[in-house]
């Protein structure tokens, strides 16, 4: 019997492409966020609010990941920003090579911020680096307080938590503080923001956060 001893990262191919994506983004001074959440938390609504708010302030592009349909790219394109749709056809997450291909459809020279909306799923996208600067996890108030405990890897790997649908709190048995505590227990460094895409509450703070992270560099 012979044994071949190796030590290879299973996801090394993805990580390698992600590294190339990251270098490309850095070369263009682009700030890239990977938006992750469960389905229905309001990722696309937050994106729409964000694009509306940032109009004329930042040059933004969007990569949309969905299992089927380009409905989200259509929603986003209404805001006059370049939007590329990735349809995974059953795939539960985006991988770095899909982003690498999608980026070819964008003129990076003109961009400052790239928002990648991942497939709605709190499990699989946690493992796949896309080359982003940060993962932003969205949890909505209707999902309850225990999401961080159930999906710790995602909350651990994210830099920011956006708590969405805060306008619904009066109608729910939802404890905002306990969601925050659960999230900070997993990741004490997590920055927490609160938004409502219905009332617009907190959108300005979220956009200020994005603007603050975009490199101040001249764009033609």
């Amino acid at each position, binding site marked *: *019997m*012979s*044994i*071949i*001893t*190796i*030590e*290879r*990262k*299973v*996801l090394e*191919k*993805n990580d390698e492409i992600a590294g190339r994506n990251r270098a490309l983004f850095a070369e263009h001074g682009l700030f890239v966020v990977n938006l992750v959440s469960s389905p229905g938390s309001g990722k696309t609504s937050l994106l729409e609010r964000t694009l509306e708010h940032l109009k004329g302030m930042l*040059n933004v592009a969007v990569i949309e990941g969905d299992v089927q349909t*380009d409905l989200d*790219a*259509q929603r986003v*394109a*209404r*805001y*006059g*920003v*370049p*939007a*590329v*749709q*990735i*349809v*995974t*056809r*059953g*795939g*539960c*997450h985006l*991988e770095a090579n*899909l982003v690498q*291909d*999608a980026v070819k*459809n964008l003129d990076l020279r*003109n*961009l400052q911020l790239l928002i990648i909306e991942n497939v709605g799923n709190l*499990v*699989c996208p*946690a*493992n*796949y680096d896309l080359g982003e600067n940060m993962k932003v996890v969205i949890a909505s108030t209707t999902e309850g307080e225990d999401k*961080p*405990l159930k999906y*710790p*890897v*995602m909350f*651990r790997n994210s830099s920011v938590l956006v708590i969405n649908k805060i306008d619904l709190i009066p109608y729910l048995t939802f404890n905002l503080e306990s969601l925050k505590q*659960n999230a900070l*227990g*997993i*990741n*004490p*460094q997590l920055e927490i923001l609160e938004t409502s895409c219905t009332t617009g509450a907190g959108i300005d703070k979220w956009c200020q956060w994005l603007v603050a992270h975009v490199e101040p560099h001249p764009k033609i």
Partner: protein
Amino acid sequence: MWLKGEEESVRRRSPHSMHELSIAHQIVEIVGQHVPDADTARVKSVTVRIGEAAGVVAESLEFCFTAIIAETELAGAALNIEEIPLMLKCSRCQTTTRGSFGVFVCPTCGGNTTIVSGTELNVIEIELEDEVPESP
């Protein structure tokens, strides 16, 4: 100015519909890089090391691995999974403790911790059957 709206679709047929399946494909690919084609049928087992916090379900990975190799030269190869516990080291008191999900703060002093182990996802060993000696 960058105001002209445009929309393009990148439609891709992804071979994986859950991430354990995608991971199983990556494992098979790595095996192929270390074992010459002529020896593929000799692969008896593949050992992977998976951290408790890697976000991978062992049973699901095993199922996917078996399914994708079924009608290939690799058919019959076993997937051995070594699970690595989540270990945390406190940045304040330096104590190393066994982590449990939901708690990443130090149980001794309440300080912030860094992950020492438990996020691995590596292929570490491929076992080959002995070559059958050619009959005289």
